[in-house]
């Protein structure tokens, strides 16, 4: 941009510009330094360490032993690893549709309430998002207590048998997905709501004048126009579901009978309980590769949007 003006300037001024450029460069590096050093040291170096350690056999106490791709070969035949991958996938299949559908429907419903009531309810649904996974876990452990919990009290009151919930291998994973969904529905509703506000009201008016009912309008106007935000939410929730850990660490420790032993939990256990740090790093790297692919898709979508 400055090229044209520079060429017409006298030599002395040219030097002035040059030293200005140098100054600007130095100042920019000064401004970036703290974050760049931080990112390099605490995000990039760890990823490189993980890669390095994943080629070694290491139990922390003894020195590392280089075994090449040994850990990666081992994981292929590790039944527990594949079980954890399968469990994670099951979790994704429960969590993602649940969060997606409920948040979307809730947003559409809240959006149809006029006036300040809308804002009030939006806030109300959003409260669980602000509490931590630890607190959410303890609340639901209390509610789902097999003997005395509130939910079983209700079930008994309406004549249904009490359930074990987190203690039952066939229910535990769903309970965890449910708790996570409960926390996040308000959050994704807000994202959906923001997108709904971008749809011109005239679209709806025209459709209703043509005699369309709510389901028609949702199917042929609302849902297609939310395409971008739909994809965004699907990918972000999928990536999040691959990384579920806190609730499982607190509520089930991977049990009962390995029913909630998801990948991140299995990685954690290998490092901090079995002391197989090299192997655990290899597992983490495989997980990273999977998440990376999904992130690339997300980045493509987000980038496509901001280019408009």
């Amino acid at each position, binding site marked *: 941009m400055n090229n044209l003006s520079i060429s017409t300037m006298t030599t002395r001024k040219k030097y002035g510009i040059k030293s200005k450029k140098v100054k*600007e*460069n130095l*100042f*920019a590096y000064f*401004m*970036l330094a*703290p*974050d*760049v050093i*931080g*990112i390099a*040291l*605490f995000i990039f*170096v*760890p*990823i490189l*360490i*993980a890669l390095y*350690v994943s080629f070694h056999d290491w139990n922390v106490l003894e020195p590392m032993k280089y075994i090449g791709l040994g850990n990666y070969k081992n994981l292929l035949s590790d039944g527990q690893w594949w079980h954890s991958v399968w469990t994670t996938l099951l979790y994704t299949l429960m969590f993602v549709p649940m969060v997606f559908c409920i948040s979307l429907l809730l947003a559409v419903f809240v959006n149809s309430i006029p006036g300040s*009531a809308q804002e009030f*309810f*939006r806030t109300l*649904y*959003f*409260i*669980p998002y*602000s*509490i*931590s996974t*630890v*607190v959410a*876990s*303890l*609340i639901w*452990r*209390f509610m789902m207590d097999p003997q*005395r*919990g*509130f939910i079983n*009290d209700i079930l008994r009151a309406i004549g249904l048998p009490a359930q074990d919930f987190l203690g039952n291998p066939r229910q535990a994973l769903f309970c965890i997905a449910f708790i996570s969904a*409960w926390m996040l*529905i308000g959050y994704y509703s*807000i*994202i959906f709501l*923001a*997108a709904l506000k971008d749809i011109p009201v005239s679209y709806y008016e025209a459709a209703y004048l043509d005699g369309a009912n709510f389901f028609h309008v949702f199917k042929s106007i609302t849902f297609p126009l939310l395409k971008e*935000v739909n994809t*965004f939410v699907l990918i972000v929730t999928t990536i999040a579901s*691959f990384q579920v*850990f806190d609730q499982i660490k*607190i509520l089930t420790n991977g049990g009962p009978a390995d029913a909630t032993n998801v990948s*991140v939990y299995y*990685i*954690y256990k290998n490092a901090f309980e079995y002391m197989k*740090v090299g192997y*655990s790093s290899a597992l*983490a790297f495989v997980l*990273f590769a999977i*998440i990376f692919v999904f992130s690339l898709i997300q*980045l493509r979508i987000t980038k496509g949007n901001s280019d408009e």
Partner: protein
Amino acid sequence: MSKTLEAKRNRKIYITKVVIAAILGIMVVFPIYMMFISSVKPKSDVFDMKIIPGTFTLDGYTTALNENFGRYFSNSLFVSTVVTLVALVFHAMSGYALARLDFVGKKGMFLWIISTLMIPFSVITIPLFILMKQFDWLNSFKGIIIPAIPHAYGIFLYRQFFITMPDDLEEAATIDGCSYLGIFTKIFLPLSKSISVTLGVAFFIANWNNYLWPLIVTQKQSMWVLQVALANFVGRSDTPWNAIMASGVITVIPIIIIFFALQKHLVEGIKMSGLK
């Protein structure tokens, strides 16, 4: 006449909607309400299913405080505050440089920073732990705080914010003889107050609620933050439920206060994390 009929019908629809919304709202918030009332019930009445406590007691809170929850609270407060403030300053600086300054390698730097968003924390936890051990930062505030500061998300949002500001801001300042640092601190920083509050709220809550990293970096009980202490407290078989609920309340109180005081900023932050 048909008009008043229609108005009546609309009114009916509105009321039905509000009633449904209220029922949904109660269902969503009820478990949190249960935590609050169970925290003031006596140990023996916690599972009595009463929605309003029969006997009111602060026993749960006394037990929680005897378990050192005061200490964990101040640890949490210190960690979250420091991370938030330092992160805001650093990210504003980086975001500003990426948005308003010309320098060699700008584009590459930006892409490099953004690419770290694709590295999930669960993948770097173990190597980060190894690194902390090397630094001798385990069981220290340094270890909890410093690795939590760098984050591409805040940098990116500051950049997006600064990039939208008009060009004549710098020109006027340069004519006035402002230095580079002066332009940043005297002109741009004051203008970024609103986004700083929005990001500050998001950072504070995220760090207050963070569990995985403090869990891994602190074994010593005196260094625990609330989330770690609480998870440990729940995991012990002898812990009375009213005390667990009381410590839960202690843990969420600051967040609830922020929630109601700065709710607009919270919502704004979420919208930003969406598609922008």
